[in-house]
């Protein structure tokens, strides 16, 4: 049964691994549902605390939505590589004969589909609950689609570094929250412009630039982080 060294079909590998991670998400959905529930709860609580004045709420809504999305994302990043690290899957990932920077992508894609994409698509509903007009929904969804992707990529860099650390959650937050700040600023800026009838294009373009550069650079950093964690 010994065969020659096989070249691994990179696309096929990524597809199969994305399927694996999506399957795991479906099998234990709490990791996806918890951040979404958290998001929902906080959005419900804010009007109770701030008072039901729609005028005031809609002024604060962009900031609230984005901060909560950021925190929900942080929750997801804290779990990102933990299970795979503990059961040896991460080790096996490093043994796969494709570049580690590519091998870590499927998990990120699956995580984003199950968290960022879902959250962005539901966000207009949450926006309505905070008194945002439906007309800003496209900007809200677009900014969150890109913002969650950037935050997941950045968070994964931190997660790959802290996965071997016992209770690395706080360390992770300290590491990546400063990196989230520009994303937060650009995201709320886009939304504020849209609410006030201005032009959100610049902020959205900034987010787009963040996604593309993140997609290019973050996998390399994540791969390096995974190596560091595995060789502790």
């Amino acid at each position, binding site marked *: 049964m010994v065969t020659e*060294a*096989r070249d691994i*079909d990179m696309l096929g*590998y990524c597809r199969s691994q994305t399927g694996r991670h999506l399957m795991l998400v479906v*099998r234990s959905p709490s990791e996806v549902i918890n951040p979404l529930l958290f998001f929902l709860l906080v959005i419900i609580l804010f009007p109770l605390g701030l008072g039901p004045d729609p005028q005031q709420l809609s002024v604060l809504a962009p900031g609230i939505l984005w901060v909560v999305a950021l925190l929900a994302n942080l929750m997801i990043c804290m779990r990102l590589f933990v299970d795979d690290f503990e*059961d*040896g899957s991460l*080790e096996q990932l490093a043994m796969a004969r494709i570049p580690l920077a590519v*091998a870590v992508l499927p998990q990120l894609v699956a995580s984003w589909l199950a968290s960022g994409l879902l959250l962005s698509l539901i966000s207009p509903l949450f926006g309505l609950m905070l008194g945002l007009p439906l007309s800003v929904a496209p900007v809200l969804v677009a900014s969150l689609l890109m913002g969650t992707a950037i935050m997941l990529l950045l968070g994964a860099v931190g997660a790959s570094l802290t996965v071997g650390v016992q209770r690395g959650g706080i360390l992770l937050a300290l590491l990546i929250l400063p990196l989230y700040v520009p994303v937060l600023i650009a995201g709320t800026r886009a939304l504020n412009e849209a609410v006030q009838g201005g032009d959100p294009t610049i902020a959205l373009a900034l987010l787009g630039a963040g996604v593309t550069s993140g997609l290019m650079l973050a996998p390399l950093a994540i791969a390096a982080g995974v*190596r560091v964690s595995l060789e502790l």
Partner: protein
Amino acid sequence: MTAALLEARDVSIHKGLRQLLRGVNLRIEAGDIWQLAGKNGVGKTSLLRSFARLARIEVYGDLSRCDDVLYIGHSAALKGSMSPRQNLKYHPSGLCNPDHEAIDEALASVGLSGYENALTARLSAGQKRRVALARLFLPSGRLWLLDEPFTALDVVGVEILEQRFKAHAESGGAVVFTSHQTADLGARLNVLDLEQFRGD
């Protein structure tokens, strides 16, 4: 002389400030079966992991090996919420992406036919071990690096594994494994006692 599948020249392994092993010389060729032996903590797993290139920072010396490697560590990389069949099909090492028939055959070879679609979390420790070892019955790399493959296996399981080792060695592969127990692997078996390389 055939090309070595793995060659270690004067390899030393450090863990923190302590030198675990030094001066390890080993040449593994096709058809070899090597057992890394020694007391607990002598560095069997560390050496095996260094062979797998999973511990590059701590390893000094000259270490070269072929790329076609299968490594099975203590933790089996199995997901409890997936079935044995799915665990093998979607294995993160990506060494194999075989069809269902090949996987079912491999599972049958390790005595797990009938469990293909069971929940892996519900299997016993020995059965989980067998799922992990079923990878050896799929197209799976020339050089096998196995950490304590006999753990949790019953007598029949051990025998199946020994047969598989021999067959793999005969067909031009090589096996390196760590174990405390003596395995019945015939003349191909070489035992490397790591006590002789113990560091400071």
